[in-house]
């Protein structure tokens, strides 16, 4: 597809689109205007038909999620939209670019979503570290309000929405949807037991929709151009353009919006190849929660189902490239440290398990490990996965299990050589 024009990260093609005038001059808020001429059900149907899947990690069909809201006559409580902008999965940075460079598209998506689901109050939960992003969102919301897109009576339709920016304070777990709700209510970010699901009893026990901010930024072009337009991109099961955050050993790290269906090799070529012309050793398709895949699987099509079939997952589409100088034990150690830090402490397998993962990996990395440690660390990892209260615990295992599966010799070398064979970091 020559000359593909980005539809979400439009800042790549149009400079200054973060200003509302530029955004409007380039077709901005046309999706909202189109939506207001339809009924909410029609808008929901277009999004369902488009097959849009959540970009926050789980890939859940967005239209279906909205349809889980109980009918208003059976549950008269106020409904809320919570927009997940807590992007903290290591390797992921597309939401930040969207928020800082094309905030109006996110806001337009939120407004259309509220209209389709009959919600009058939306919260954007933005990661505490993204202070600049929060300021820019506030600014964009003020601009949109001045243009009559936010408020009591949007463009004279009689329909009203308020958007509130809520800053987090540094906790990865608050990206998990039920922990996000707890945090919004001013509590510790502990995940909730489900059911009841947020669609029925979410924020302040009211029906709540939770979507990733990047997911919602796909909505305006869908409503404007239709479901069929959207389905011309991507693969059959993951329709639409895909945005990848590519980092690690790559010549030109950054966010890349593709028309979808790209393989890992194509993505590497797109981002200028492996850094320094070195050889690819491994890659992670979806942030540190996904299993590490070896270079010989680089012809993998990067969509939700192919990545899952390959034993990994697309997750937040954060592609981390590792060249031949990367130590797999060191990488697993870093990632385990991350989970140890970010474990909320609510349940034992994750709280204690991640601590032991770090202990064992640390002694392996520093040459004080024993051969048995390799199986020990794998068994601790597999005992966390599936036995934890929420998915954070499960996410701690793949980087270790896949590392040992594909690079066992490297783990063994750490023991036999009494240290890291890659000692340059």
């Amino acid at each position, binding site marked *: *597809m*020559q*000359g*593909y024009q*980005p539809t979400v990260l439009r*800042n*790549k*093609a*149009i*400079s200054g689109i973060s200003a509302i005038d530029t955004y409007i001059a380039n077709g901005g808020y046309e999706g909202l205007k189109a939506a207001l001429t339809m009924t909410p059900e029609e808008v929901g149907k277009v999004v369902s038909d488009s097959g849009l899947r959540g970009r926050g990690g789980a890939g859940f069909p967005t239209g279906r999620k909205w349809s889980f809201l109980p009918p208003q006559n059976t549950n008269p409580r106020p409904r809320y939209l919570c927009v997940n902008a807590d*992007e*903290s999965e*290591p*390797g992921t*940075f597309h939401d*930040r670019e969207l928020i800082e460079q094309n905030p109006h598209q996110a806001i337009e998506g939120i407004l259309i979503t509220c209209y389709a689901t009959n919600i009058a109050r939306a919260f954007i939960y933005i990661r505490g*570290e993204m*202070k600049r992003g929060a300021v820019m969102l506030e600014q964009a919301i003020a601009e949109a309000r001045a243009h009559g897109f936010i408020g009591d009576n949007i463009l004279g339709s009689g329909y009203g929405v308020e958007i509130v920016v*809520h*800053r*987090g*304070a*540094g*906790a*990865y777990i608050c990206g998990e949807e039920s922990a996000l709700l707890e*945090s919004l*209510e*001013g*509590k*510790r970010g502990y995940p909730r037991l489900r059911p009841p699901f947020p669609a029925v009893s979410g924020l302040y026990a009211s029906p709540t929709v939770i979507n990733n901010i990047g997911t919602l930024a796909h909505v305006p072009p869908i409503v404007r151009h239709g479901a069929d337009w959207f389905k011309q991109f991507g693969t059959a099961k993951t329709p639409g353009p895909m945005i990848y*955050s590519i*980092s*690690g*050993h790559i010549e*030109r*790290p*950054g*966010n*890349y*919006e593709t*028309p979808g269906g*790209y393989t890992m090799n*194509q993505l590497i*070529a*797109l981002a*200028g190849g492996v850094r320094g012309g070195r050889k690819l050793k491994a890659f992670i398709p979806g942030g*540190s929660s996904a299993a590490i895949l070896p270079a010989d699987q680089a012809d993998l099509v990067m969509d939700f189902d192919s990545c899952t079939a390959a034993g990994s997952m697309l997750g937040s589409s954060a592609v*981390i490239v*590792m060249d031949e100088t*990367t130590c797999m034990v060191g*990488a697993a150690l*870093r*990632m385990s*440290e*991350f989970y*140890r*830090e*970010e474990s909320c402490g609510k349940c034992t397998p994750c709280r204690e398990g991640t601590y032991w993962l770090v202990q064992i990996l640390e002694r392996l990395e520093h040459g004080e490990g024993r051969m048995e440690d390799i199986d020990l660390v794998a068994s601790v990892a597999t005992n966390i996965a599936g036995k934890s209260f929420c998915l954070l615990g499960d996410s701690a295992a793949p980087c270790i299990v896949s590392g040992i599966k594909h690079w066992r010799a490297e783990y063994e070398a750490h023991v036999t050589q009494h240290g890291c064979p890659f000692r*340059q*970091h």
Partner: protein
Amino acid sequence: MSDQAHHYAVAREIDLSRVREICDQYRNISPEEALMPVFQGIQEEYGFVNEAACYEVAHQLNLSPTQVYSSLTFYWIYKWRPGGKHRLFLCEGSGCYTTGTTRLRRVVEERLGIGAGETTFDGKITFQPFSTCMGACEWSPLVELDGEFYGFVDEARMNQLIDELNRQEYDAADQLAAPGSDAQYALVAPAPNSGDASTANVAQISERAPSLTEYEAEQTAQSGPQPNSGNADTR
């Protein structure tokens, strides 16, 4: 270290009437919802939220002190004790790790003489390495200093950043100290390759590493909207 950079007051106590004012800004929303913005206000102004402030917030928002305390202690951004005037963060997330952060940590530890989470004893600089990704891996390895991101940091650049801190914080004091006195470099060791540790030598390094805000502006001026155009036209 630009004009917008946020320096924390080196306060040891929190003015409770100021806490009340911050709470007053959020009277129109529910106390639970107000809790986090109130903490943020205090944290940003003082660099920490202590027990006295905690009780005052509970009183003002009509919440139980236990609830306030339990929320406060969950999030790392809220500090219980005052930190340094400058905050130096080093990202050690998976993206940055692959591009090499262990060496950077060594540079900081050697030059500032403090380890992870510690503050220089004069309260000037706090150093915090993070295993949590800062969400800007396209610029990895990444350092955050006083709220500004610095990208593609190598050892030389890390040294430069510390030199700059050195210049800002200790030059004024040096002018008071007798030339050549030991008081000059009590805290920040000279860069290994900057040779003689004279004030003039450090002050000469006026060429500081550009922050990413500046870097972006420069790139935009040079080559259109983005450092790397993500237009997928190579297919």
